[in-house]
């Protein structure tokens, strides 16, 4: 009970910020709906199916890479981090609290992806399972990757200047919104080494639409990334006694 209260306490602080910046949430909804409309008009049902898988992975990736990392970075700069170290809060409780505060974004993503899935005939249960598995993995992996970089910078005053380009680089350039089959053969095989490509392809598999890579290969790629960024982050993520 005590642990739950602590997590809610951390979320209470951060959610006040989300509430006051509700336009971010509205912007996120508008962009998502716009993407769905654009793809349905140009690419038809297949493009929309792909978009559901992309949305499941990319929404979690953006949340972890950009938003959670920015909140954590800000807490370090503003000395909130030190205030929390000198308290009974553990590092795990802190991260769960910050993640809980971001749930309005996840709820929005769930509502949009399941609604679209319902109208284009994708199994809702499979969509929810994909959300639970892929979105969670994307959030954790995105946050860990971002933190492993941000926490190495001595004066991280402009965190979004790092996280925004990183998000664009990992989502727009590799075959995330488009299929790997359009790439030259060598590039196709290499692309599975990019975490977002592996996450989206796994989402394709779970929701039951065409996937490009063997799910075992995608899962292995994700696990290797998790271990690698986990080690890199653990080296710089210290909860006191620095």
């Amino acid at each position, binding site marked *: 009970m*005590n*642990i739950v*209260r*602590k997590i*809610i*306490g*951390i979320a*209470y*602080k951060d959610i*006040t*910020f989300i*509430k*006051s910046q509700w336009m971010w949430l509205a912007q996120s909804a508008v962009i998502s709906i716009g993407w769905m409309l654009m793809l349905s008009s140009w690419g038809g049902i297949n493009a929309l199916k792909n978009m559901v898988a992309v949305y499941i992975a990319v929404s979690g990736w953006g949340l972890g890479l950009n938003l959670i990392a920015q909140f954590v970075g800000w807490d370090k700069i*503003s*000395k*909130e981090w*030190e*205030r*929390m*170290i*000198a*308290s*009974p*809060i553990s590092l795990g409780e802190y991260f769960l*609290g910050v993640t809980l505060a971001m749930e309005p974004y996840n709820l929005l993503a769930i509502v949009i992806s399941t609604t679209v899935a319902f109208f284009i005939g994708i199994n809702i249960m499979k969509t929810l399972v994909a959300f639970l598995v892929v979105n969670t993995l994307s959030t954790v992996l995105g946050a860990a990757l971002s933190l492993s970089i941000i926490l190495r910078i001595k004066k991280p005053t402009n965190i979004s200047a790092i996280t925004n380009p990183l998000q664009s680089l990992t989502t727009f350039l590799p075959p995330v919104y488009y299929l790997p089959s359009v790439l030259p053969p060598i590039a196709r095989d290499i692309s599975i080494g990019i975490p977002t490509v592996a996450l989206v392809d796994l989402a394709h598999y779970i929701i039951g639409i065409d996937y490009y890579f063997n799910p075992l290969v995608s899962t292995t790629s994700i696990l290797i990334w998790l271990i690698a960024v986990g080690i890199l982050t653990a080296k710089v993520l210290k909860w*006191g*006694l*620095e």
Partner: protein
Amino acid sequence: MYGAEVPSMYAVEAYDMGKKFENVWAVKSATFTIPRKSVGVIAGPNGAGKTTTIKMLITALKPSKGNGKIIGFDIVEEFREIRKHVAYQPQDYSMFSDLTPEQFIISTLMMRGRGYVEARIEAYRWIEELGLIEIKNRKGWSLSGGERRRAVVAATLATNADVVFLDEPTSGVDVEAKYAVLKVLRSCIRNGSTIVLTTHNLVEAGLVADTIIVIHNGYTLFYGSPTELMEKIPYRYKMTMSKPSGNLSGIFHIDLGDKVIIWLKDRSKAFAIAETLGVNTFSIEEVNLEDAYLYLIKSLGEKL
């Protein structure tokens, strides 16, 4: 008490504690104790190592040498236990600008495991204590620096932690509010807490401190009561005058540019000194804690 450990009489203990960042020692040797249920003030010039010392005590930093204890728990070996008993207000910390003082205190208490209703009741008590009623529902961005500082002090004290560390809690706070903060700090120790704060203001330290710790250039120059600090200065009076043309060598003084402060053991010598220096007008008053502190820094600090 057979078989049980005797609890330490000190809330804070530091023994030759030091911290090195790369090749620079921020704190070279901090040694002092602060008894339980008292106010300890850490004083020293900018860059003396006050904040680094506090950060080691709250377990944010690991000492490079020496050791420390909080209510008997070792700051490295038993850091988890310590974190249950301390609260910290960092220097220049400002509450989240989208929160109101009330929300900020509630969130601070909930983070430490209190329920919402309990946190709200406790928050109201501290809002009243620190005179924040009028602004309790105003967003942080609309408050002055001093109001935000008071809200942070209220949140830190509301934790009811056994040992509360406040890094410059009164900086930027107006005089009236400053006395309100100092009054609340004294009431906290009556309720069982120990308060450790840093300040540059020795007059303020004299009002509130049971123990004063003077840190300079990473070393502890002194720790003891304000009375003991006053005993360190061998002078009883100070005369302030325009900078004289006469030679000041051999006279213990502080150069203020166009003015000088000269410390005296005996009030009667003032006229003789003024005559020697060719000064007609001067003021004379008893030395205070600030003079004792300055004397300590000048006489011992420069030898370090």
